[in-house]
């Protein structure tokens, strides 16, 4: 079994339902995010367009975060999920330096690394990840990439040539795919980003308890 995600960006309307449900399901602390929907505006008036891109951990098959973790707190589950063991983590932040997608944060409440786990706890109980359930347009497709009859496998087959991953040059082999997206969706350097001018940009980070 190899669990994967696919987001159909042509369907996503940027409602942030997935983002909120993830926060609630996983009790993600204030100022931290496991999953977020990024808005990028493209073009010059009047020919403008707003794009929406949900961004989460890719559960890479060749995960740099797992490789650099000195204590195997980051580890592969048999279903392909890259999981975090908070009790094992020493908080060295090596994984934060290694993940090319900025998907890991140090939880200020536990002082340990955390990230999207594809809701491993729900999956273990036979449920879908919280974000999949919350999406009103079914833009998030989750399933077994090894099973040719799964929704995700069929979607990938149907959209051949239009299925992309983020930063393929990093050789991480993401198990998180996108269809209907372009450079602005997937490459953070393809858009201008002026910090301090966007909603949520000027927020106060929680002080870490203990540690520093």
């Amino acid at each position, binding site marked *: 079994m190899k669990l994967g995600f696919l987001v159909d960006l042509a369907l996503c309307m940027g409602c942030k339902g997935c983002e909120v449900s993830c926060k609630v399901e996983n009790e993600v602390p204030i100022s931290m995010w496991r999953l977020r929907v990024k808005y990028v505006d493209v*073009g010059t008036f009047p020919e403008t367009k707003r794009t929406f891109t949900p961004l989460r951990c890719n559960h890479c098959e060749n995960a740099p975060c797992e490789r650099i973790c000195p204590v195997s707190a980051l580890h592969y589950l048999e279903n392909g999920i890259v999981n975090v063991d908070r009790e094992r983590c020493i908080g060295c932040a090596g994984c934060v330096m290694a993940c090319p997608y900025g998907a890991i944060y140090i939880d200020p409440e536990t002082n340990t690394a955390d990230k999207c786990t594809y809701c491993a706890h729900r999956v273990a109980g036979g449920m879908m990840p919280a974000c999949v359930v919350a999406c009103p347009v079914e833009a998030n497709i989750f399933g077994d990439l090894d099973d040719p009859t799964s929704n995700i496998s069929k979607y990938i087959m149907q959209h051949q040539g239009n299925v992309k991953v983020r930063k393929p040059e990093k050789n991480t082999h993401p198990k998180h795919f996108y269809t209907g997206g372009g450079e602005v969706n997937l490459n953070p350097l393809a858009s201008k*980003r002026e910090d301090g001018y966007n909603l949520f940009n000027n927020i106060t980070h929680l002080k870490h308890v203990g540690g520093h």
Partner: protein
Amino acid sequence: MVEHATVATDAVVTLDVALPGIVWGWMITLNMWAKSIGTGVVLIGVYLLKKYGDRAATVKTLMPVISFIFLNIFLLFTLLDLHQPFRMWHIFFYPHWTSAITVGAWLATIFTGIIFVMAAGKILKRIDEEQYNKLMWAAFVFAIPVTLYTATIMGESAARELWQTPTELIQMALAAFIGGSATYLLLGIGDQNIKRDLAIVLGVSATLSFIVYMGEYYFGAMKAEEVAATIAFVKEGGSYHTMFWLGQSMGYIIPVILVIFGLRNKSNSMLALASILALAGLWIAKHVWLVIPQLLNLS
């Protein structure tokens, strides 16, 4: 294809979360800096002992003592930088050997142990010449990977395209030579010949290190889009432009000039000044290089 025609120029992020900020900060810089001195004094010290024998006799005690002090600074700040410092023991009980952090922690611990025995043995006069020599060679062998392993951690940091293992390996080795030679020069070790050797090591290492930085500064951007975006932080108008050039000037350019004049005029005070500047500049240069890739938006 309006979208594709405008993508490159007119795409603006209009709603997103805040950037995470700098995660590896001054404590990691201090860690690298102190390690450079802690290993450098061993690498250079063994060279002096082999070449000059009894003329460098003071090195026999100073080498392990200084190394031990700086290795402890390095270990202390490595520990303090952990968000869960009391779990450090996990590295020894649940080691993950693909991680350069694990390999480095083990090597540094063994190295510090050897240095401790050498320092304690010398101070307490409980070590004979033969035992000292054996430990010295063991320390020399361990000092090499302990100096270098941080470069492989940086290489494993796949998100930071600026840090490439081969370049960082060279920079780590040169930093150790600078750290070791500058420390001995500051302490005024040995006669004029020894000082000349130390000054040459300092001058050559600083020159080479500066050349590598300039290579990255002027040509790094050709390698990858991410490197270009990172280097922009130290280019003109970048937020770390001044600090970068302060580090390069203090750490490399001025010390090289001072070493040249110091050697010509046989001026020990010029060499001492070059050493102070080199040590301070090394910290600044390393800090800038550590921080700038963390300013980049990764997703």
